[in-house]
């Protein structure tokens, strides 16, 4: 499907999209710095464009209180629908309720606003962690010495951490020798320093679980510097063109990452909202299934960038969720 | 007559340097005790002990029968011991207006209450300002005032309320006769009100005018305690120097090759143009009241301010400096007044302070040759007779007068065409003043020297020629042979006669 076609469909789109130009939606963001969020935004933009609706972006730059205000601002702007991207349950709950009271449809991505009127779009961090760890077990058997990169207090990381805990219980053979991690920026650089010390102290580590690509990048640098890229395997979550490059490097220790395509998640978020506005029910939670990406995959099918990835892995390119037949899809 | 303050066996050492040995004397109520002593004798240290800045090592101080050992300056002020310190920079708060500066103690001791009542403060401040004759509006920030006015502010503040003991450490060092007189009459008032006054100065005229008794310090000890009237000043001076003063008779040089020439020079808006010539090897003293334009002239010659109109010539070549650096390059040096803000580099030791302007002379390919530097600075320190422990000591450890000598020595290290010294004798003791004078004359060579002072006797002491400035223009001049002092004085005052005032 392409924009050209979507144009021809526009006629028989349900209200209010029969004249989409008058439909106004807002994206209220909590996090914005970094590739993932940039890609997510581009997804939102392309899908909004495909629908032909007017999109407003309110960016709270990691100020949860301000984010709540911005919902109110969106209300004041008289938007028809709001996408809440990340944030804190406690600070968003009331704001979202106010929006609903004002008759505005709301979709939440990666933040649980505890409100059944609000569908949850999720990239399912638990699944991400699960896929990566299953791969780790496939490669290294059920018992290995691991290093774990984790910074508590960040919602997605906390969710991925839960899965890690489960796995440690299920496979007592997994020995967590060291836990570290920091969000000092540049994140990769700071974590490289820590990982380097950890490797110095625990040369026996064979698996590094770094469920966030910035962490993984840091660990990889440390592994290379320690000249241990033969002895260590890195498993992570999330992916970007830069990550792909890193994974493709000659005998790179970064062997697998589980990821959803943030752009796709963005598109899905908009489509879900569109369905709500059209009076359809997308369901309580719309889950974008993650894909496992291994180094071998990248090498075998010569994948160099997110574009290649999308081209070679349809599952990654497009999630077949929230796609009623009237829904125009972005050009690809 | 009752004793207000009594000192017994005061001792103080800074590290290995024993500054005060067993100091003991008394201050009587309604009585001005002058404390004399050469630079570095220990006067200011004593003052700082009395005002709670330093704590004494041993000894007792008794204030009105009760032992007095102030922990902090606040403490001292609260007990009625008020001090005007030597450095002006320790006396005023530049960013605040005059009013607040005048009432700083008053505010500090809470006299003003919680809220500031601007009107009431203004009135109170105005009274003080009038007392010492500060003309500027009370809203002007102090950093906009000339040195003298700042000094007056500091003094007036001390007068803010009736102290029991008033300590004045070289209050006149940057005042000229006019302001000094107002100060003296104020001190007379205090004397009548029974305040005990400790007065420190190197100016004989002050001492002559004020002293009821003289305590003389030498190398941190009391070398004389004179009460008999009339006070034997010579005896005091001998006690202070440990010998009698060698009085130099200066032979007036009559050189004719002009070095610096000003034509139709206008120093300040609306001032009359004037011509002026300084010859090679000549020492010219420029005298004038505060605000008469001496520094204005200095600033022009040193490239800090441009000449409003007129031309400058140096060695028959046109000379128009645009920055101190350029002036120095052209062979014109200025030793500015107010060493505290204009000369002393507090973080540096003596050597580094001395070599600052001519570092390139002590470096090869901008690489410093420290040994060479050290040697030269020690020469200079000794030449100009600085009292110091070690040339690596921080300059802050020097006494006021010795700091002054260092900032003069800085400009004697290299030969130059024209040397300008603005108030070079600020806080320098009489003997040292003579020594510097002689040194300036003997080392003159082909150098022309301008000495800017506001005291005539300072001028007569060293100059070949005396030029009087008033109203930012030249008011007259005299060769320094039996000069007619009264005439000079009247020339200086001419500004006031005209009724207008510059600055």
């Amino acid at each position, binding site marked *: 499907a392409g924009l050209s076609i979507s144009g021809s469909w526009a006629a028989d789109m349900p209200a209010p999209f029969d004249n989409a130009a008058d439909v106004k939606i807002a994206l209220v963001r909590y996090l*914005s*710095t970094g590739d993932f969020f940039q890609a997510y935004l581009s997804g939102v933009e392309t899908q909004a464009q495909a629908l032909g609706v007017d999109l*407003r*972006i*309110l*960016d709270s*730059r*990691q*100020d*949860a*209180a*301000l984010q709540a*205000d*911005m919902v*109110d*601002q969106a209300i*004041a*702007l008289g938007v028809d629908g709001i996408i809440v991207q990340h944030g*804190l*349950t*406690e*600070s968003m*709950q*009331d704001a979202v309720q106010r929006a609903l009271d004002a008759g505005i449809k709301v979709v939440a991505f990666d933040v649980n606003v505890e409100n059944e009127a609000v569908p949850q779009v999720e990239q399912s961090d638990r699944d991400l962690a699960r896929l990566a760890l299953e791969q780790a077990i496939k490669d290294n058997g059920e018992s290995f010495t691991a290093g774990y990169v984790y*910074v*508590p*207090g*960040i919602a997605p990381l*906390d969710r991925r951490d839960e899965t890690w805990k489960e796995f440690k219980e299920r496979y007592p053979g997994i020995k967590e020798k060291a836990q570290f991690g920091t969000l000092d920026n540049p994140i990769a650089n700071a974590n490289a320093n820590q990982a380097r010390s950890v490797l110095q102290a625990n040369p026996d580590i064979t698996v590094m679980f770094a469920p966030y690509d910035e962490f993984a990048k840091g660990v990889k640098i440390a592994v290379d510097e320690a000249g241990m890229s033969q002895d260590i395997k890195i498993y992570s979550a999330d992916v970007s063109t830069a990550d792909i490059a890193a994974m493709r490097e000659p005998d790179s220790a970064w062997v697998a990452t589980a990821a959803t395509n943030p752009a796709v998640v963005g598109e899905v978020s908009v489509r879900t909202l569109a369905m709500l506005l059209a009076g359809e029910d997308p369901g309580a939670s719309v889950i974008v299934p993650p894909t496992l990406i291994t180094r071998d995959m990248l090498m075998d099918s010569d994948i160099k960038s997110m574009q290649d990835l999308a081209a070679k892995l349809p599952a990654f390119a497009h999630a077949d969720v929230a796609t009623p037949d009237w829904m125009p899809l972005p050009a690809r | 007559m009752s004793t207000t303050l009594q000192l017994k066996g005061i001792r103080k050492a800074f590290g290995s340097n024993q500054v005060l040995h067993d100091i003991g004397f008394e201050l009587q109520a309604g009585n001005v005790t002058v404390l004399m002593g050469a630079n570095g004798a220990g006067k200011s240290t004593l003052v700082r002990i009395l*005002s709670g*800045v330093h704590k004494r090592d041993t000894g007792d101080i008794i204030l009105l029968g009760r032992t007095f050992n102030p922990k*902090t*300056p*606040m403490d*001292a*002020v*609260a007990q009625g011991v008020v*001090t005007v*310190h030597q450095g002006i*920079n*320790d*006396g*005023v*708060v*530049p*960013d*605040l207006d005059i009013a*607040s500066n005048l009432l*700083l*103690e008053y*505010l*500090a*001791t*809470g006299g*003003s*209450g*919680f*809220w*500031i009542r601007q009107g009431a403060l203004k009135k109170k401040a105005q009274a003080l300002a009038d007392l010492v004759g500060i003309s500027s509006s009370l809203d002007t920030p102090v950093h906009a005032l000339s040195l003298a006015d700042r000094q007056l502010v500091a003094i007036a*503040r001390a007068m803010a309320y009736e102290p029991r003991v008033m300590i004045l450490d070289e209050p006149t060092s940057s005042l000229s006769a006019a302001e000094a007189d107002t100060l003296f009459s104020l001190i007379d008032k205090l004397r009548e009100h029974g305040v005990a006054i400790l007065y420190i100065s190197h100016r004989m005229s002050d001492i002559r005018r004020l002293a009821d008794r003289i305590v003389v310090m030498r190398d941190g000890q009391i070398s004389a305690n004179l009460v008999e009237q009339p006070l034997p000043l010579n005896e005091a001076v001998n006690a202070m120097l440990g010998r009698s003063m060698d009085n130099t008779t200066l032979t007036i040089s009559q050189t004719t090759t002009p070095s610096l020439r000003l034509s139709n020079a206008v120093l300040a808006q609306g001032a009359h143009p004037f011509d002026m010539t300084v010859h090679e090897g000549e020492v010219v003293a420029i005298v004038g009241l505060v605000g008469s334009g001496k520094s204005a002239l200095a600033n022009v010659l040193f490239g800090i301010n441009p000449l409003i109109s007129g031309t400058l010539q140096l060695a028959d070549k046109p000379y128009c400096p645009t920055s101190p650096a350029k002036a120095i390059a052209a062979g014109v040096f200025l030793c500015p007044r107010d060493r505290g803000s204009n000369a002393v580099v507090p973080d540096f030791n003596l050597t580094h302070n001395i070599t600052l302007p001519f570092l390139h002379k002590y470096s090869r390919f901008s690489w410093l040759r420290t040994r060479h530097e050290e040697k030269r600075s020690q020469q200079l320190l000794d030449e100009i007779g600085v009292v110091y422990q070690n040339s690596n000591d921080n300059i802050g450890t020097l006494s006021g007068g010795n700091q002054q000598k260092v900032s003069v020595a800085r400009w004697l290290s290299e030969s130059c065409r024209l040397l300008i010294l603005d108030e070079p004798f600020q806080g320098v003791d009489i003997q040292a003043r003579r020594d510097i004078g002689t040194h300036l004359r003997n080392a003159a060579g082909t150098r022309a020297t301008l000495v800017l002072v506001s005291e005539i006797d300072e001028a007569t002491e060293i100059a070949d020629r005396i030029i009087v400035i008033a109203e930012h223009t030249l008011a007259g001049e005299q060769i320094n042979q039996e000069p007619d002092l009264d005439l000079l004085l009247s020339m200086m005052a001419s500004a006031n006669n005209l009724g207008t005032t510059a600055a």
Partner: protein
Amino acid sequence: MNKVINLAIRYGFLTLLVGLVVFFSIAADGFAGPHSAVFIFQSVAITGILALGVTCTLVVGGFDLSIGSVATSSLMLSAYVMVVWEQSALVAIVLCLLMGALVGLVNGWLIVRMRVPDLLATLGMMFLLIGLQRIPTQGRSIATGMTLPDGTVAQGTFSPAFLALGRHRFDLFIERLLPVSVVVLLVIAVLVFLFLNYTRHGRLMYAIGSNERASSLAGVAVNKYKVTAYVISGVLASVGGMLMSARLGRGDIASGNNLLLDSVAAALIGYAVLGAARPNAFGTAMGALFVGILLQGLTMMNAPYYTQDFVKGAVLVLALMFTFSLSARQRR
């Protein structure tokens, strides 16, 4: 001529401020109007409060780098007191204020007694607090139902009274218009303004900032005032933290990492207001407002977050260049 320059110096910045408001009101729909105005105030309330604290330390010639971390500490502390210790709002507030005051005392003590340079002392304090505030929860955010290090589950909740600090809005012409935080900001601004400009203590603090030695020789209790300044700044920072906590309804680790720089910016911009060329409460408030208006306006114009930083910086530099160069020119 001089008169013109004078006017420019005094009112240049404020004119710029008004200019911005006018520009945005025309360019960005939804910018003008009482609600938007309130948003702006609310978005700068916390920064503003902290900035007023820094101003006090700047006045005595010091500088407080620890405010940001004090704020986040009080954010965490208040949450901990209510959620883990299950105490009342009052207890939380009192403890936070005490914490702020204590930090201020220690800072002051280090600076006046131990003679540690202010930047140094407060920087150390900053690192110390950043670490300290994470230790009790091992770096996790604090929310009802969280499991503590010792395995127990936290049962307490944010008391409604406390949450009201962040969420209640007073009626003003329009109902539910004025949020508590804005009221707090205004009150504190007025108090600090009066304190610095119309009390003898304020005057003496300025004296200390201008010439500490002379002030102490004049019998000013320099040390006492310096310590006071740091205590004020500490307490105000803790107030800011509490408001943040009340807005979030959760002890969120990630929040408030921009607080320090933004409030310092506000306080420093204040130098340029009314040509004061020195720290002053009114200027600080204007500075905070300035940043708020800028960001709000840019958001309303859909500018991405990084252009916001850029414009913020650019306008800041230009505005200051203007004011200071002029006032310098005039002083000569």
